[in-house]
């Protein structure tokens, strides 16, 4: 029996580094998510090593490494590069092989990617010069309210009130939230309105067609967004297991194709 071989995808995003290692059957054998630091190289090396440890293999068994994400050029040991647009489409299509619209909400950008029923990209949109409607927006709101980021979803789930913010702008929104809390609004209602703001911003970016697949780190930790999006878009929304890894998974699939 031939020795098993593996493929890796590394997604260096604007907030986190994601590494996925797959085998020939496209199964994820190892992965790791590491927060970006000022020492990018070090963070990349840590994430890669941890993913190798989880897969319980050595680097020599990785046949091909494809990098993606905003820091895709920073990986010294990569074999190939693909944009995160192609990687997210690829990863999401592998889970939902039909005509899909992928909505990826990342740390600093939101992407809407449309594929045909063969998985070929037919168009894409990205937020322009503003990070409203992205993870950074929620990070800033949590920071201003002095609430840990990993608590905001649970807090917002307590809200029963439909309310919205007057501006998408991160700076204005956080000021508005603080003012309204001072005036007696509940914290959970205000955090929920921040989630509503993210969804509204996403919906106005493009039309949503076919099956909608939601990916990205923001969804992994804040499933309320999925519920709000379903309610507003009035369609069933799909999300793959561990949506944060989809870009890296897509990159790993490209790595496999490059060697096939």
């Amino acid at each position, binding site marked *: 029996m031939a020795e098993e071989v593996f493929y890796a995808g590394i997604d260096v995003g604007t907030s986190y580094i994601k590494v996925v290692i797959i085998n020939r059957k496209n199964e994820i054998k190892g992965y790791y998510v590491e927060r970006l630091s000022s020492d990018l190289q070090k963070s990349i090396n840590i994430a890669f090593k941890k993913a190798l440890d989880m897969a319980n293999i050595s680097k020599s068994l990785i046949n091909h490494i494809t990098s993606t994400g905003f820091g895709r050029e920073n990986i010294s040991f990569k074999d190939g590069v693909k*944009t995160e*647009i*192609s990687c997210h489409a690829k990863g999401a299509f592998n889970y939902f092989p039909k005509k899909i619209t992928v909505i990826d909400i990342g740390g600093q950008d939101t992407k809407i990617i449309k594929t045909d029923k063969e998985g*070929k*990209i037919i168009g894409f949109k*990205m937020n*322009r*010069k503003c990070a409203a409607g992205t993870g950074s927006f929620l990070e800033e709101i949590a920071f201003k309210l002095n609430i840990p980021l990993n608590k905001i979803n649970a807090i917002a789930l307590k809200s029963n009130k439909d309310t919205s913010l007057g501006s998408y702008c991160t700076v204005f929104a956080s000021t508005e939230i603080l003012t309204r809390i001072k005036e007696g609004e509940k914290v959970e209602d205000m955090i929920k309105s921040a989630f509503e703001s993210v969804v509204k911003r996403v919906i106005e970016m493009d039309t949503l067609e076919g099956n909608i697949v939601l990916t990205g780190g923001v969804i992994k930790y804040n499933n309320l967004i999925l519920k709000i999006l379903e309610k507003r878009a009035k369609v069933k929304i799909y999300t793959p297991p561990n949506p944060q890894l989809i870009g890296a998974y897509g990159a790993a699939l490209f790595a496999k194709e490059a060697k096939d």
Partner: protein
Amino acid sequence: MTEPHIFGMFCPFCRDCLAQGLKNRYDYLDGLMIAQSCLHIRQAYTSWIKHRPVEFDKFLCMPHKVQSPHAYEFLTEEYKVFKNEIEEWTGKKINDKDLENSIKIYNENRRLMRELYNLRKRDNPPITGEEVMEIVIAMQMMDKAEHNKMLKEILTKLKNHTPDRQVGSRLMILGSEDDDTVFMNMVENCGATFVIDDHCTGSRYFWNEVENGKDKLASIAARYIDRIPCPSKDWEERKRIPHILNLCKEWNVDGVIIMQQKFCDPHELDFVAIKKALEDAGIPTLFLEFDVTVPIGQFKIRVEAFLEMIGEEDLF
């Protein structure tokens, strides 16, 4: 710099023009003129001459409805007035011989540029889009006769030149004013080559020639009335779209990048119809909105993803 004088939602190009004027960067100019194109640049002009007066200033009333049958006569009359004003200012008469000579030089310049553009139809174009942009910008700033001389030299060199670079996807770039060579360079280093453009500071500037008729001013007027229109003058019949589709076909274009000058309403409105026409013809488009400063990193990812998308199509 321009905030007290023109609106913040005027396009960055005219705000930049005015800012440079107000900063006295053009203090070597004796005169300043403009022909009607859009409100934004016209108000930038008005503010400029108000705050930095020049010896000679002129607003030339180019008819907005170029498809009116009266447009030729109207513009010809405007030119007569303009010519008289210039003669009065300089103290020098401009006769038909002068005009004919000038038409000859300008036409030669346009013809040579068309020749240069035709070379880009080759499978391996001998010149990049970035280099062509430099030439087109120079064309609008330097003496035409001198430009002609240099163009001829370049054309001779390029005729048998086969550059040692990957052509990649063949792209068209279209939009309004665009002199962003940094952006062109970035795209052409991502596995693509610009083979044609439809910019008002690009191909549209020189595309058609003046027919050397008996009445020289009428001939020049006819050239400007009949030129490939910008979106603000492209009505009621839409003439620019068939022209763009034809360029795509003749230059064998794989994809089109639409550069939108922020806040330029005519172009933003035209974009919808252009995108549809191109996509109906099977040509993918990428829409980018730029300011005077281009967010190069953000644009790079979009351009690379667009090229991957086009590249994917090549497989079928």
